């Protein structure tokens, strides 16, 4: 049960992070200075500079004191989802900037609007390049779901603690099992991402194994 909730949390955080992270990255690269300085950078800086646990408390207890009563799940989603968005935006931004400007020019030259050029030419290339770093973000976010424990959500860690309390069981054993479960989920997720990286590689642009002798 707890495992499923942890996976659901991670998917929700990563999903929100992706949906918000892409526009943040596009805004940072292509936006005018108002978009960049008044919208993108404040969000990115705020969520990257504050520890995850503090963010969780701010969105749960802090919002509560403003009469915004978020459920623990919503508070966690906003805190951790936007936090992931901030990190993902930087992954995508780096990837977008690594793409030759000629790609954008060629797209504009056949009559694509800036939006279409980003949608059909720049992002498909940038997302492929992002997969290796994104796999890092995935493993961080999945493990950080354990922090949501602090808001009383019964995810994997809290479930573990309940089991320890209920059965007067061996705490070490239970936590080792929790660790193993995290390990297995992260491991298979990373394998899946490796598979996607391989499947969508652009011929001639794959990251090659170094074959020269040092």
């Amino acid at each position, binding site marked *: 049960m707890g495992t499923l909730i942890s996976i659901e949390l991670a998917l929700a955080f990563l999903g929100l992070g992706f949906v918000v992270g892409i526009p943040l990255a596009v805004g940072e690269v292509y936006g005018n200075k108002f978009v960049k300085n008044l919208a993108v950078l404040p969000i990115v800086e705020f969520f990257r500079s504050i520890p995850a646990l503090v963010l969780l408390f701010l969105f749960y207890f802090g919002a509560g004191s403003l009469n915004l009563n978020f459920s623990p799940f919503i508070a966690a989603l906003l805190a951790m989802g936007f936090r992931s968005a901030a990190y993902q935006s930087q992954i995508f931004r780096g990837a977008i900037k690594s793409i030759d400007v*000629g*790609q954008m020019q*060629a797209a504009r*030259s*056949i*009559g*694509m609007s800036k939006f279409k050029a980003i949608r059909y030419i720049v992002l498909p290339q940038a997302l492929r390049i992002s997969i290796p770093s994104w796999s890092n973000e995935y493993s961080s976010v999945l493990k950080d779901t354990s922090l949501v424990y602090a808001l009383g959500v019964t995810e994997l860690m809290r479930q573990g603690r309940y089991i320890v309390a209920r059965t007067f069981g061996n705490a070490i054993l239970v936590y080792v099992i929790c660790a193993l479960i995290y390990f297995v989920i992260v491991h298979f997720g990373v394998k899946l991402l490796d598979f996607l990286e391989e499947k969508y590689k*652009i011929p*001639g*642009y794959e990251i090659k194994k170094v074959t020269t002798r040092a």
Partner: protein
Amino acid sequence: MTQTILKVENLHKSYGKTEVIKGVSFEIKKSETKVIIGPSGTGKSTLLRCINQLDRIDKGQVWLEDVEITKSHIDINQIRASIGFVFQSFNLFTHLTALDNVRIGLMRVKGMKEEEATKIALEELKRVGLGDKIHNYQAQLSGGQQQRVSIARALAMSPKLILFDEPTSALDPELIGEVLEVMVNLAKEGTTMIVVTHEMGFARSVANDIIFMDDGIILEEGPPGEIFKNPKHKRTAKFFSKITQLEGEKAK
């Protein structure tokens, strides 16, 4: 009377404080091939990029047929769709096959159905001699093949004219021929083209008109016979003698 396709009037362009184009005017009629030559850094490429406004112009007007495309309310995307552009560095979309490179504009800009777009794309790829390479990605094509795909990409949009920005300058010598051959055929078939190039052989044999640019202005303009034999300006003559020297050395 043949119809004027493009007219440029008193075009100015600066980068920062440096004025790169200092008032250029010319026009091109349907089915004409105009070749722009001149020393490096004289604004030839910038001029092409200003025509379809990949670079914003500072002053002057450009008309495509009877529409002034430099007006601010003009939908520039729609205009660009009818002006082909071939880049020195090819700029094929790296994540797409040759076929997808050619049909993406038809599908995403013109809103054509996949089947129809594919048909046109295949025709254009055959026209540039690449009917057997349609599933290759950019990295699986030679430079000359890449440039031919990029010409097919421009052709597929059935543009009113095509701008070529030094299309052979990034190619190995033995690959230049295949690209020039495609361009010669296009000229014969009546495609309206403006070509910036250093290929004097192409200029001499294909151009209806040659524009010699120096330091941001058009120094002289005329048919190749005239301009190569009796250049009016010293600067033009000097440029040709340098080029001839270079070609002479190559021949040795």
